[in-house]
């Protein structure tokens, strides 16, 4: 085309069409239009919002974070008192509650998920059928229905305070929640904690040493059990030597309710149970897919060199499967944190319920509160995906 038309192009002055067909000009043009539209949209929304706020006489700014909130919460991990506690404080109470329930749910769902995922691949037909049923039922029913079912259908129907279920006299379960002993550290308890940290570090160093020795000499050393031994003995000895400086505050029935201990409300229990089992099903699928992604030849090769079935799993299959398991596993963890926001449906005081619902309704600072809450979730997601990227890079390097 271009060669045959040279004469034509020469005979005509440069037209606006050919100018527009210059790629750089076009790219610039498109981008300017996009940026312009975006800027106009932002400006439009901003002026509308400013006008609406003025018309409705609503305040704006972040000063409200230092005003007293004036409402109470049934579950808090840090000190908060009605009357003096601020909205900022309420935000942190909510954030901690969100992180509390989601971190426990993450640990439990990962453990259960691994277990079910392995069962799903069992050679025993009935066992794998059971695991399949578990996964399919939990994955195909909305989480919110499950949460509400556990809350209204199970934990709200527990016995009354007087007929509490009693676990060995230290934990009590009734329709007001689960009362577990809370630890009360004594003066010298910091020494036990220090000993524990030191022992853990020592155990890790032992493991590195054992691994290096095995690489050099081929001799094995039971580093895992030795590490456990170090941690238990060192921590135990220091604990006993300092005179057992940890006591437990056990809940006791006083009048119409239990006092003391650490009270976990039914909403927390329902949320924890449903988050755990719902995501354990997703985790199980990730584990199953990961293990299946390791080719059968690997198992056969490991069997051929005479590894025992347990070692085949631990040394050959799982390390390779982890490459495929980790990315979906981490996105499941992120989903646990995000889905813990459904707490608002059953009144567990997470950051959405406390801050985005109650605080917003009371104070009316809609934009600020929505922005802060979203920023919180975005921070968590970005942090997790940051570490995820580091992991991926390391794994990819190791693969070469």
């Amino acid at each position: 085309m271009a060669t045959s038309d040279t004469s034509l192009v020469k005979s005509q002055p440069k037209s606006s069409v050919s100018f527009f067909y210059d790629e750089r000009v076009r790219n610039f043009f498109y981008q300017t239009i996009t940026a312009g539209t975006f800027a106009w949209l932002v400006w439009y929304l901003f002026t509308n919002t400013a006008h609406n706020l003025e018309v409705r006489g609503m305040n704006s700014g972040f000063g409200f974070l230092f005003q007293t909130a004036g409402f109470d919460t049934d579950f808090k991990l840090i000190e908060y008192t009605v009357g003096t506690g601020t909205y900022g404080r309420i935000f942190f109470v909510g954030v901690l509650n969100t992180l509390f329930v989601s971190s426990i749910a993450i640990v439990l769902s990962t453990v259960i998920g691994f277990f079910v995922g392995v069962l799903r691949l069992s050679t025993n037909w009935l066992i794998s059928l059971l695991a399949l049923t578990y996964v399919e039922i939990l994955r195909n029913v909305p989480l919110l229905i499950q949460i509400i079912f556990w809350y209204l259908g199970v934990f709200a129907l527990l016995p009354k305070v007087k007929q509490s279920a009693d676990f060995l006299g230290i934990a009590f379960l009734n329709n007001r929640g689960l009362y577990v002993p809370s630890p009360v550290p004594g003066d010298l308890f910091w020494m036990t904690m220090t000993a524990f940290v030191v022992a853990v570090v020592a155990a890790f160093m032992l493991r590195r040493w054992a691994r290096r020795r095995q690489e050099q000499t081929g001799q094995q050393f039971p580093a895992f059990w030795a590490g456990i031994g170090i941690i238990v003995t060192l921590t135990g000895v220091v604990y006993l030597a300092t005179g057992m400086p940890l006591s437990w505050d056990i809940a006791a029935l006083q009048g119409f309710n239990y006092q003391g201990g650490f009270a976990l409300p039914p909403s927390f229990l329902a949320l924890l149970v449903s988050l755990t089992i719902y995501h354990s099903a997703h985790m199980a699928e990730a584990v199953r897919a990961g293990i299946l992604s390791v080719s059968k030849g690997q198992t056969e090769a490991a069997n051929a060199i005479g590894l025992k079935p347990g070692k085949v799993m631990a040394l050959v299959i799982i390390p390779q499967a982890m490459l495929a398991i980790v990315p979906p596993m981490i996105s499941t963890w992120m989903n646990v944190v995000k889905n813990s926001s459904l707490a608002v449906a059953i009144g567990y005081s997470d950051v959405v319920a406390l801050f985005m619902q109650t605080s917003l309704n009371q104070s009316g600072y809609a934009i600020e509160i929505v922005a802060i809450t979203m920023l919180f979730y975005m921070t968590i997601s970005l942090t997790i995906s940051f570490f995820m990227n580091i992991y991926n890079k390391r794994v990819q390097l190791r693969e070469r």
Partner: protein
Amino acid sequence: MAEAIHTGEIRPPPTVQGTWFAWLRDNLFSSWVNTLLTFGALYIIYFAVSGVWAWGITNAVWEAENRRVCFDINPDGACWAGVLAWFDNFIWGRYPRGEMWRINLGALLIVVWMVPIWLPGVKDKIYVGFSTVFLYPFLGFFLFAGGEKGLFLQVMLSLAIVVLIGNTLNGYHGVRSGRSLPEVVIAGLGMKASSDKVQRKTLLAIFAAAFALVFWAQMGWVLVSVEWNLWGGLFLTLVISGIGIAFALPGGIVLAMGRRSQLPVIRILCTGFIEVFRSVPLITILFMATTMFPLFLPEGFTLNKLVQVIVAVCLFNACYMAEVVRAGLQAIPRGQYEAAMAMGLGYWKMMGLIIMPQALKFMIPNIVGNFIGLLKDTTLVSIIGLFDVLNMLKAVSQDVPWRGLHKEPLVVGAALFFVICFAMSKYSRHLEETLGGGTQR
């Protein structure tokens, strides 16, 4: 070596192989650990099934006036009487009982509309899909909302009906003879010999005549207006998730292409948009929609809550779909892009003719997975006060005769969702198998 093997006596295969006994031995009792596990599993299954059976069937009460009567008959069983009394509310919400036929008709019409996609021999299936997404909503809106209809709605409604009829006839002829409707019409008029131009003009004239006829007919149709706050139950859940699904795919494709664009401004805007929406929970976006949209819009211009929710759900799902599409686009080898460019195709032709058709095939399992997620997530609208199916399930326990009846409605709701979602995921696996065949060498 080969000789050594063949000279020996050839033993017959073990006789028990392939029988039920061998199956039992291999799959259930291969070792004593396995035997133990089998009996453990049998016990669990017995325990669960007998418990559910006793609660849900043998001890259940099917007919009662209220929960007290249920208790008096059998306190250990499910009180299905309450569920039965409320079942219409689960499906149709608080829609006026005399007008329920409109929802049923709407549901029937969308099924009729989409059936040709699954029929063998039907031509131009892609248009069936497009017309469902772009025209059915007008028909649905007219049926569900009713009330005064403006000129635009009248035109679109007539268009939808004409297309629906044409679509159905096209499907019928496709199954019967493998021909498309235009071919049949041209053949019927004996115009096969005419030029393309004349044929096209004739078809257009027939279409215009049909449109005029339908337009004239629909002018007399009047439906009572049903306010959006009476919409509810499974119907509302399906409306919200249906619009979300219809919007998510095109929105996701646009966002994903923007994210992979060479132009930095477009890329950054799309990436930022996708990442923000994906990193926050849906419920925060719903709260944002209900609290901040009214502030964003010009004074005096209000959206009702349903529209706010639908906008939020659409944006949220477009962002999730964008990541699915992006993964699909990344799976296409670079050579395909380069080959398309070498052929002299522009960006849009390259995407539309070469890349997207291949990528969409890869994406089907994930797209369906996303749809399932969207359907399940739609229950969240109950938190901000829409009477979707979940809120209807919860409302039973607020009703005076059935006060405190929590478990049974929720079990029914869970079963309802399970059936829909499980069927969808099974269907997507089937699609994956039938479509995947073409991509493997």
